């Protein structure tokens, strides 16, 4: 099942993507070889025991031509933007300048096409210094496949001390439902926020059209010393979309990263988030929400790697599962030898709104230091009848009480988002999903 991707790669490498720098061509060759070696994961593998990717492996997805015409209408893209600030728009993985809007960015910030940045100059050097360094394509077939087809993507570079006043949004649109069969796109993001800089970045994934398609995304987020980053990732693809993603971050000393991952769409979604606290005093908020219905399946695998002492990580993932939906959460926390005074807290709460809904929650703690504070907890269950009664006893109807308690699961996660405008917009999006 990997052969046709290898064949497609040969075509890709000899055609339009041949203009890439030699170092990148070399990485791609390595990545496709690694993908062929690893193959698609199976449920026999521990990391995949609750999620079958057979529907992806067994479908013949061909590489979506990047940014092909006809392009979506600007209004279709604008409604996917959460705020009103600058935006980078990608259609099937390719940058579309005509739909993007970069007004209001401070001088010195690079925000645009990775392909263009790689052509030459200082931004090319910057991209080279970070690209593919974090996302472990040697360990993951999906990251390897994305890397093999790496041609374009979003590149955001915020230089030292620079403050982005408005959220910068990356909108990744997949066109789905064309007559020429299911397509796969491999969107790529590279976000580098240098020392003492501050930025809010949003990545949104959405489908245009309701056909079968596959998004295989990889994003790398680098947070420099003392930098403060809020990174929002919103997956709202169509109900026939397959979505596999790897998000990888690395934080230097005294930095702050708020990583918010919202999963609303897709028929089958898998999101691997790996964060490394690689400098003393770094702080991470890893905040996730999945709201699923129908026969949606979403699997979140998170790894928080405490590599240095005096770091704090607070992870909160909530799931609201209706009908026959299935949510999977695996949260691994690694405390490396010497990472003393680590303060790590993880919770995963799952609300089952039907007897057919299902949630699997697995915390995994690997602690190799002795002076640490690590707690974890998870819950899976229906609405608490005592809480329902409590709300009724204050005059609320059972229907209002139920919807309030359900919304509370989502609101708990939304409440940790620091950008009020984005939070309000996401709140409306989530409420619409719950209604």
């Amino acid at each position, binding site marked *: 099942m990997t052969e046709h991707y290898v064949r497609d790669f040969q075509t890709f490498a000899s055609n339009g993507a041949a203009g890439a720098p030699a170092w990148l061509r070399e990485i791609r060759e390595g990545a496709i070889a690694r993908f062929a070696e690893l193959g698609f994961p199976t449920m026999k593998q521990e990391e995949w025991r609750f999620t079958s990717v057979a529907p992806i492996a067994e479908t013949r997805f061909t590489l979506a031509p990047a940014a092909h015409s006809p392009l979506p209408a600007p209004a279709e893209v604008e409604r996917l933007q959460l705020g009103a600030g600058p935006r980078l728009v990608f259609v099937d993985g390719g940058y579309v300048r005509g739909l993007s809007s970069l007004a209001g960015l401070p001088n010195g910030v690079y925000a645009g096409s990775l392909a263009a940045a790689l052509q030459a100059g200082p931004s090319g050097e910057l991209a080279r210094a970070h690209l593919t360094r974090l996302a472990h394509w040697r360990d993951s077939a999906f990251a390897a496949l994305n890397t093999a087809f790496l041609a374009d993507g979003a590149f955001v570079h915020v230089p030292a001390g620079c403050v982005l006043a408005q959220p910068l949004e990356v909108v990744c649109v997949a066109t789905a439902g064309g007559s020429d069969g299911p397509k796969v796109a491999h969107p790529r993001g590279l976000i580098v926020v240098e020392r003492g800089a501050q930025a809010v970045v949003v990545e949104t994934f959405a489908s245009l059209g309701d056909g079968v398609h596959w998004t295989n995304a990889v994003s790398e987020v680098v947070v420099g010393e003392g930098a403060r980053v809020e990174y929002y990732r919103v997956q709202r693809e169509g109900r026939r979309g397959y979505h596999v993603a790897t998000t990888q971050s690395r934080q230097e000393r005294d930095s702050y990263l708020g990583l918010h991952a919202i999963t609303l769409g897709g028929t089958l979604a898998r999101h691997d988030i790996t964060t490394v606290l690689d400098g003393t005093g770094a702080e991470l908020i890893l905040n996730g929400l999945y709201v699923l219905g129908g026969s949606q399946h979403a699997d979140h695998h998170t790894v928080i790697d405490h590599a240095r002492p005096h770091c704090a990580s607070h992870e909160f993932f909530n799931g609201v599962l209706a009908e026959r939906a299935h949510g999977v959460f695996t949260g691994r926390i690694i405390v490396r030898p010497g990472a003393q005074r680590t303060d790590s807290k993880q919770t995963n709460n799952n609300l089952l709104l039907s007897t057919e809904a299902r949630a699997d929650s697995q915390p995994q703690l690997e602690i190799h230091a002795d002076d640490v504070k690590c707690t974890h907890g998870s819950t899976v269950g229906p609405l608490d009848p005592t809480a329902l009664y409590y709300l009724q006893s204050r005059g609320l109807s059972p229907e209002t009480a139920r919807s309030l308690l359900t*919304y509370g699961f989502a609101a708990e996660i939304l*409440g940790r988002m620091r950008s009020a405008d984005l939070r309000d917009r996401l709140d409306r999006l989530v409420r619409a999903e719950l209604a």
Partner: protein
Amino acid sequence: MTGNVLLQIENLHATVEGREVLRGVDLVVRTGEVHAIMGPNGSGKSTLAQVLGGHPAYTVTAGSIRYEGKDLLALKPEERAREGLFLAFQYPVAIRGITNAYFLRSAVNAIRKHRGEEELGPVEFMDALEEKLKLIGWDDSYLNRPVNDGFSGGEKKRNEILQLAVLEPKLAILDETDSGLDIDAVKTVAQTVEKLRRPDNATVLVTHYYRILTHIQPDIVHVLSAGRIVKSGGKELALELEERGYDWTREPAPVA
């Protein structure tokens, strides 16, 4: 001066998980009154409070409860609340993700809507809330916290009293609201109840301890034992219970 009958309980029997806990409770509460119901653990105090609130786990097997002349047992918990009955929970429930302000406003508006009054917007509601907060000695930081989530035991009880003050019920039932509180918090509870006392409302204080009665003047004190009210009297009865314990209330008083 006596008020109108607000609550009339007759021969109330109730079970929980198949076990009979209330075995013939009779009680009349009139407007303007404060009643204290005291009794040892397991006497049925909390069951009585929960039956009044309408907790689905409790089954009434005999007897009747009339509230303002209506059959209270025919009303759902939310209908009881909208009709002006308030139960302060012994163990208030945490509601994740929902702020206290939002919760309180939802409760107020559910009742206003029922009365045919206009619902309050967030800003008007906040204005109305200011003085209520002062009553219990809170700043508005508590309003933006999720309901009872991460609250200490004392904060949860104060939050019940805040709801009491905001909802201004006709009949308030306080289920051991004074338990587990330090003396200052007990005083706050007592003072709030006294301040909210009006000729047209009533309070039933279910309590295990005499302590709160040093700050509240109950009109009638009842002793609940083995599911029945076995004695009723004035405040001196509470004092007697404080000094002698509950044992003597179980048997008929020895003949001198």
